């Protein structure tokens, strides 16, 4: 009888992981639509191609070696068992953990849940370098980021490995529940390194220092993308509870969903209000960025805050993102979709507020963790971008940038007009 309960728990926890993984996969559609909506029409096909391709590259590279580096899963997932002894070893593990202990679930579901996080981290980069980067240079970077850079910092954080044998972040009080730092700030760090070497879009910053607006071509898509990300985030944070099959876990999952939603709502309102104050109008694109900022802010710890605290954290994140976007433009760092602000600046904020509601973490731990992640990802990314720049160049020519990268990289328009057929 006890075995049957364990089997049910196993099935439920595996199922939960798979559904959450599917929700996070859906975030790839969210990023695609958001970015497609915020770039100009002549660059839409290219950014969509970039998004679908990076998702595929992430899945494959993580399968080849990323999962092995991060979780010792074996090259080509050789560490995930198959066959008859799966059942007996799972039951043995369940008995070990007991009903209320750590979740026991299918190894394949663990990979599935993890791989979609890699794709999320990678897709953050695509927005910041939009409209002027060579597609294939980006994909070459994606291979290294998803196969090596991200898995390394993931192994030091979620897998608890020592950082090059020097220190263990968990012991220092570092805590990042679903990845404000590990996924979001990491993606933003890679993006920042790329943007430094890439330069801003032609015409974005005039010689007098004025910032030129380059409006997105499709705000309905951008809005759709944001809502898709919002929904997918329930899987992102919810799945990170890692277990559903007992009352404590189920309550935790419910709280995580609730807080995730509350933070998004708070973030949107925070950004909307600040934009209204600063610009006099309701800026939709800031509101959308605000919702995402709220989500990033709560991602480091969505289970311990109260609903009100989560809303407030999100609200502050929403305001931070508006200021960060303006600040980036002042520093002449061109980020067409605000990715570095949403995921980097607010990712850091998300890490730093964890100790406010979680006694198991410390401010010093969070700072050391943030620095570790940032320095590692930024430095290695910079090296890879630099190498790519030397070998193949990372920026399209001025001519190609004027015509639109849809033509130079993809050979087709997203919104063909004047068709003569």
């Amino acid at each position: 009888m006890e075995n049957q309960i364990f089997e049910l728990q196993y099935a439920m926890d595996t199922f939960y992981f798979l559904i959450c993984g599917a929700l996070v996969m859906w975030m790839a559609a969210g990023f695609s639509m958001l970015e497609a909506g915020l770039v100009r029409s002549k660059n839409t096909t290219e950014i969509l191609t970039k998004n679908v391709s990076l998702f595929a590259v992430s899945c494959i590279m993580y399968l080849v070696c990323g999962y092995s580096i991060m979780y010792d899963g074996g090259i080509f997932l050789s560490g995930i068992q198959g066959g008859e002894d799966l059942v007996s070893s799972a039951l043995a593990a369940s008995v070990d953990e007991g009903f209320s202990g750590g979740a026991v679930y299918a190894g394949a579901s663990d990979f599935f849940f993890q791989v979609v996080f890699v794709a999320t981290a990678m897709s953050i980069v695509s927005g910041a370098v939009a409209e002027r980067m060579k597609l294939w240079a980006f994909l070459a970077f994606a291979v290294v980021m998803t196969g090596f850079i991200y898995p390394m910092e993931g192994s030091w954080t979620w897998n608890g490995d020592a950082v090059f044998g020097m220190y263990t972040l968990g012991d220092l009080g570092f805590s990042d529940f679903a990845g404000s730092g590990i996924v979001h700030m990491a993606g933003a760090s890679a993006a920042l390194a790329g943007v430094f070497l890439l330069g801003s879009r032609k015409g974005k910053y005039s010689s007098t220092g004025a910032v030129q607006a380059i409006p997105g071509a499709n705000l309905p898509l951008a809005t759709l993308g944001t809502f898709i990300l919002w929904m997918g985030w329930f899987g992102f944070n919810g799945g990170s509870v890692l277990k559903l099959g007992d009352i404590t876990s189920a309550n935790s999952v419910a709280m995580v969903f609730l807080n995730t939603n509350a933070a998004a709502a708070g973030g949107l309102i925070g950004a909307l209000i600040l934009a209204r104050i600063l610009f006099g109008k309701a800026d939709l694109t800031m509101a959308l960025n605000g919702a995402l900022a709220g989500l990033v802010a709560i991602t480091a710890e969505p289970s311990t805050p109260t609903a009100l605290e989560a809303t407030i954290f999100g609200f502050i994140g929403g305001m931070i993102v508006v200021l960060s976007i303006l600040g980036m433009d002042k520093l002449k760092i061109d980020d067409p979709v605000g990715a570095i602000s949403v995921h980097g600046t607010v990712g850091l904020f998300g890490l730093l507020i964890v100790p406010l509601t979680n006694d198991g973490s410390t401010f010093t731990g969070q700072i050391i963790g943030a620095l570790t992640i940032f320095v590692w990802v930024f430095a290695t990314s910079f090296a890879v971008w630099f190498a790519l720049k030397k070998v193949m160049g990372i920026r399209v020519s001025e001519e190609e940038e004027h015509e639109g990268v849809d033509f130079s990289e993809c050979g087709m328009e997203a919104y063909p007009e004047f068709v003569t057929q």
Partner: protein
Amino acid sequence: MKLVTAIIKPFKLEDVREALSEIGVQGITVTEVKGFGRQKGHTELYRGAEYVVDFLPKAKVEIAIGESLLDQTLEAITTAANTGKIGDGKIFVTELAQIIRIRTGETGEEAV
């Protein structure tokens, strides 16, 4: 009174607008158009099938101008819109029979 119609490269629009403001031209009308002259388009592939992109995006700028400013206007546009590469565009000057300002009813040179 003349109607000056200039077909220029779209990214030169701001430069042309500034140049016209500098010489005192007060109003222009802009249309997004597509076209080609001697600048050829290119061939692209869509799912393996070839198609020709003949029509290139251009900006059409129309200015109603009095005789006194005509030469300066032509000079300003030519200088501002020039890149030296094929596809810079053309300017057409046509006679304007009548101009009327709708708000006040002024006609002729006063309505420019």
